[in-house]
């Protein structure tokens, strides 16, 4: 068993005024930062590590931010109007986010996803009233992208396709919200921002904002170390359809992460920090520790894209008891 830690502080008291909103989508963003105090692996005391907990968004992930922004942008341009259906390809969280915002605004949503996405994801999008269309699991998210293009080409007037891979509103959402939140939450002390790359929207938009505040802030991307990997939500760029919004020259560093290392980090964050997160967060934290090891001082913010409960049926947790020695 781990040794109990000293009480470090009291729970944050409720705000003096009740938090209320007129619709679920108004609760997107303003997610908390939490300091990572144990899973530090001997890095220098002058280095502080913070996780930004995007699982607190109403749809449960960082993807609520771009989904909301792309839909608001579509409405403003008149590309999305009554009678249209929102259609996109997604391997999960963006689909859940689009389904949530679509439900809140009264628009139907259809989502193309590889048939091997987790059971929880399939159930959540359907629970929000969206229609799921499945693509070949052997072709991964690129297969879903291609099938979605085909569906759109057959009935272009019927659909509004946010197209998260090529829509400037995706990184713009992070430029307008994630970046300013991190700057404010760290009182401008942030020195490094670490996040995984899926569409690249998070790291492009947040990175651009932080660099504008302080050009010395380092932007670090975590990506799978191989084309054949198990890091749901992340893309190995060299072997993928590269998103139009992704510009590698905006990054200071890109770190390849092995699937096993990311999975093991997820187990540790749950047991040692009380933070049950998804595998992309595990990958990002492995990258953050690699960055931290080279520093004497710094404030590193790691983006934890979602919580881990929607992966309990996936390979991440299959057989983990055997690894932990808690089952024969």
């Amino acid at each position: 068993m781990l040794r109990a830690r000293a009480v470090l502080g009291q729970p944050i008291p409720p705000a003096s005024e009740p938090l209320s909103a007129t619709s679920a989508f108004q609760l997107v963003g303003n997610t908390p930062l939490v300091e990572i105090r144990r899973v530090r692996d001997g890095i220098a005391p002058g280095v502080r590590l913070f996780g930004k907990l995007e699982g607190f968004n109403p749809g449960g992930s960082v993807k609520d931010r771009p989904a909301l922004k792309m839909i608001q942008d579509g409405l403003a341009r008149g590309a999305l109007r009554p009678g249209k259906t929102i259609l996109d390809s997604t391997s999960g969280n963006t689909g859940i986010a689009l389904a949530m915002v679509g439900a809140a605004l009264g628009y139907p949503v259809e989502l193309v996803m590889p048939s091997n996405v987790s059971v929880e994801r399939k159930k959540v999008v359907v629970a929000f009233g969206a229609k799921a269309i499945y693509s070949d699991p052997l072709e991964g998210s690129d297969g879903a992208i291609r099938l979605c293009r085909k569906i759109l080409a057959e009935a272009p007037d019927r659909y509004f396709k946010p197209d998260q891979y090529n829509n400037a509103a995706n990184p713009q959402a992070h430029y307008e919200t994630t970046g300013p939140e991190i700057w404010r939450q760290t009182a401008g002390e942030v020195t490094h921002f670490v996040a995984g790359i899926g569409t690249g929207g998070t790291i492009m938009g947040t990175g651009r904002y932080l660099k504008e505040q302080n050009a010395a802030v380092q932007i670090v991307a975590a990506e799978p170390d191989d084309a054949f990997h198990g890091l749901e939500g992340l893309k190995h760029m060299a072997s993928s359809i590269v998103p139009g919004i992704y510009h590698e020259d905006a990054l200071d560093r890109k770190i390849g992460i092995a699937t096993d290392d990311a999975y093991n980090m997820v187990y540790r964050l749950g047991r040692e920090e009380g933070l049950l997160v998804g595998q992309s967060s595990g990958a990002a934290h492995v990258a953050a520790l690699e960055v931290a090891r080279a520093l004497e001082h710094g404030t590193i913010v790691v983006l934890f894209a979602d919580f881990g409960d929607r992966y309990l049926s996936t390979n991440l947790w299959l057989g983990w008891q055997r690894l932990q020695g808690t089952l024969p």
Partner: protein
Amino acid sequence: MVQVKIPTPLRKYTAGAGSVEAQGATVTALVDDLERRYPGMKARLCDESGQVRRFVNIFVNGEDIRFLKHLDTPLKAGDELSIVPAIAGGR
């Protein structure tokens, strides 16, 4: 011969083929045969101890080998084996 379905990220070993033939009386033997035909494949599927990597799913005629006999699952001519990674890609 067993038909083996290859996922996109591993098709660099099969000259782009999405379906290949291989043989073996068990999944272990088939993986070894795949390695002979397409060198480099085995290390992607199995770790150093020879176990299937955690993020790799192998299905025989649509059944996950975890619920059969793992690597000892028997194969016969005409079976179909699919290699499916845990979902990956931009969300």
